[in-house]
């Protein structure tokens, strides 16, 4: 399986990946017209999590007035991305709203009401001399801009740009394959913004300190885009960078598949491309990087394809992030009558939306509304006849049929033995299945169940540790109580002799003594200003919290108002 399967038109050796499917690309439906700028909608909906990783933390509150480009939410930690106001306006709320997600119906979103002025706020200075700057500074800028992978995965780009000093990157791959049918936003972007992309590539090269080549992979069904990119490269040559025309076959734009086609190398299972010295970025991501570094502008808009027979005038739009799908469809003439499906993404991996109130996010590349009779639903599944076509089509060379049987039987160990987690959910298996079994659905279910089981396992482990600690504590307390009792009994036994001939009842004396002890204890506690704490087995974090709380309490106690109140 390490043989080349042909050469690109420029004579470069290309490599085959296993399986894949050919199908009508349907791109001419939307790629003929220039990209129009989408109008600013009455309300922008900006989910705090529109990327892989932690949700961003809002920096604004309802009622705030924000300017275009102003940071409104900050990336929480390394694996997260910041969010900027796509236009100027007033922040209406931070509230749950329908979001594009397979399981979650709603998510926390910033609702921004544009004021129509579209006035820019203060932006960081451009970095035209980035080549002389420390890559870390440039990466910081890219992180600031909130850039994530714009091919659909929405992985924070800054993370991919800092693979660590021990991993030298020899090859940078720029993904312009756009292999899913119907989608044409990258095609249009390459035709219209080739220069931005090329400048972005130069920045990425510098940041990653790429030692070898940079390869731009574009499927051969986009001749205009190829031409435009070639012209841009000729106008502003980038060192050791080549545009490679690759054959049209789905899923050539999958990261692992594109790496395979262009370099013949395989990304190790459970690994990332950087493990073999390769980093892959989408063309739209490169363009966004150019904006951030050379223009000081954050990621606030993207190209979106609005297509399908259910849309009156299919085409591409330059869209502000947060624009609801309904507004974009309306700008392309609205739905044709009878349209009952709306898909975010392409037909192979896209997510069927239940509502057109869903906003466009950073990874949202396409809105696909099939007309009735287009992309016909195959109906109920038939029994699997074990024909094995799924295995022929699988680009990861898995055995989808076996995965299906074991997932159906809920045999989660077997399903992992058959390498479920190498599945990229491209949908090739389900596409070719003569029984029309929704195979990918079974794999998602199995993955979810296994993740759920892992969480349960960890929870159970924690509960066990806690339970054991409690048992030990109770045991210890019991021992202590017994010890105290023993001591007391001994003391009582010896008391009459020690007291001599006093007429006081030894029992009463003991009660009195106990009362006195309790009083003293209470007084002591009042002095410290604390009640009993069960602070025996605290984690570091808990201890820190308590300390902070104590400090606050101390501050409050010593503040002048409180003093006065006393």
């Amino acid at each position, binding site marked *: 399986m390490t043989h080349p399967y042909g050469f690109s038109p420029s004579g470069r050796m290309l490599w085959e990946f296993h399986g894949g499917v050919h199908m009508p690309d349907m791109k001419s439906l939307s790629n003929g017209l220039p990209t129009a700028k989408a109008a600013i909608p009455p309300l922008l909906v900006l989910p705090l999590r529109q990327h892989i990783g932690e949700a961003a933390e809002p920096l604004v509150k309802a009622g705030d007035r924000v300017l275009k480009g102003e940071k409104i939410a900050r990336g929480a930690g390394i694996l997260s991305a910041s969010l900027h106001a796509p236009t100027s306006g007033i922040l209406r709320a931070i509230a749950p709203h329908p979001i594009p997600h397979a399981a979650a119906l709603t998510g926390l979103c910033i609702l921004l009401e544009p004021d129509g002025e579209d006035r820019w706020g203060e932006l960081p200075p451009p970095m035209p001399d980035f080549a002389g700057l420390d890559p870390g500074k440039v990466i910081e800028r890219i992180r600031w801009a909130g850039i994530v992978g714009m091919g659909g995965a929405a992985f924070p780009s800054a993370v991919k740009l800092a693979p660590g000093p021990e991993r030298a990157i020899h090859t940078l791959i720029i993904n312009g394959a756009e292999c899913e049918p119907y989608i044409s936003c990258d095609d249009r972007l390459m035709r219209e913004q080739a220069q931005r992309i090329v400048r972005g590539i130069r920045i990425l090269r510098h940041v990653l300190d790429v030692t070898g080549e940079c390869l731009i992979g574009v499927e051969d069904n986009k001749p205009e885009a190829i031409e435009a990119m070639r012209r841009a490269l000729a106008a502003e040559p980038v060192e050791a960078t080549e545009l490679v025309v690759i054959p049209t076959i789905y899923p050539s734009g999958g990261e692992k598949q594109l790496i395979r086609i262009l370099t013949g190398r395989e990304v190790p299972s459970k690994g990332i491309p950087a493990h073999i010295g390769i980093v892959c970025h989408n063309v739209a991501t490169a363009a966004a990087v150019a904006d951030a570094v050379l223009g000081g502008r954050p990621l606030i808009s993207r190209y979106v394809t609005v297509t399908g027979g259910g849309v009156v005038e299919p085409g591409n739009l330059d869209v502000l992030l947060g624009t609801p799908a309904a507004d974009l469809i309306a700008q392309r003439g609205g739905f044709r009558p009878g349209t009952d499906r709306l898909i975010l993404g392409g037909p192979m991996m896209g997510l069927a939306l239940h509502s057109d109130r869903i906003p466009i996010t950073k990874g949202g590349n396409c809105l696909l509304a099939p007309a009735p009779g287009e992309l016909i639903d195959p109906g109920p599944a038939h029994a699997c006849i074990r024909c094995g076509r799924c295995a022929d089509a699988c680009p990861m060379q898995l055995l989808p049929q076996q995965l299906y049987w074991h997932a159906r039987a809920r045999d989660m160990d077997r399903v992992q033995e058959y390498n479920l987690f*190498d599945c990229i959910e491209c949908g090739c298996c389900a596409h070719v299945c003569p029984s029309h079994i929704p195979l990918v659905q079974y794999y998602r279910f199995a993955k979810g169940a296994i993740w759920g089981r892992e969480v349960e396992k960890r929870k159970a482990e924690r509960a066990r540790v806690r339970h054991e600690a409690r048992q030990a504590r109770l045991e210890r307390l019991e021992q202590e109580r017994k010890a105290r009792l023993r001591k007391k009994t001994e003391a009582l036994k010896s008391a009459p002799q020690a007291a001599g001939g006093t007429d006081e009842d030894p029992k009463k004396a003991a009660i009195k003594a106990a009362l006195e002890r309790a009083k003293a204890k209470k007084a002591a506690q009042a002095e410290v200003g604390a009640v009993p704490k069960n602070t025996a087995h605290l984690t570091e974090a808990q201890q820190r919290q308590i300390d902070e709380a104590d400090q606050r309490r101390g501050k409050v106690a010593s503040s002048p108002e409180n003093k006065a109140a006393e």
Partner: protein
Amino acid sequence: MEFLTLPSPHSERPNSVSRVMRQVLLALLPAIVALTYYFGWGVLINLILASVTALAAEAAVMRARGRPALPVLGDLSALVTAWLFAIATPPLLPWWITVLGMVFAIVLVKQLYGGLGYNPFNPAMAAYILLLISYPVEMTNWLPPRMLNEHLLSFGETLSAVFTGMLPAGLSWDALSGATPLDEMRTQLSMNRTISEIHQSPLWGDFGALGWEWVGNWLFLGGVWLIYKRAISWHIPVAMLGSLAAISMFFFTIDPATHPFPLFHLFSGGAMLGAFFIATDPVTAATTKPGQLIYGAAIGLIVFVIRTWGGYPDAVAFAVLLMNLAAPSIDHYSQPRVVGHGEGRDG
């Protein structure tokens, strides 16, 4: 606006079970025409009887299971079973044997295991073997091809023979029926005659047996068309015919006097039907590509062994059922290397 939410992919599916089955039926048509031409109306009567019984049995089981029958009948798999069975059985087979065979195939071998996709054995072949063992005389009463047949039966006479067992006046079963070429070869070889002597008989054609070789040709062409249409993959037929040809070539080379030329093996009996239409039954075959090569090659080998040294003149049905048993294990031990695993991976 609210929309339907269906799981991805949302693509239009290029294939369906009924399409695959329809292609198999179509590919069988030329051979059925040839069989009817050489062996008379009985072939068609068998075919129709088997089809009706298979569909009725399937519908009855679905009814008993309380499930809609139409989608299941619509996948055409019962029809494929019926046609394969009818092609494999003698043209004047008594009607009740055909009915018994089909009920056994559909109810016991297929539906009792859960229906299409769940049966470990090929229904047509399991039924064929049940009947061959239970009614060896009826199941081996083949007719000679038309150019050697002095008593061509009319449509009415054939109907009467199949449904009442009555032959036209003056004819006996012995006079009417003839041995199959494989049977003839076997009998003659056991009488210590050499291949060249045996070939003096008018039974032989250009490379196989008269009539039979043409049925084989049409099955071969139908099979090639199925591969071209990607209804089946080439692995099983090539492996099966290849191994059968290779091993028969080996013995032919050693001793041409007692071992027929490989083409005889390929174009006689069930070899072509088995290679393209029976061993390739996806439900009961191995599914990985290397597994299919092993599976097909083993069938070819078993066919030769039983034909040459076993108790039956032909062996495709036995070989297929034996390998049906082995298919799950073959699959287990022939898994492909997943991308990013093992040797081929970098880094």
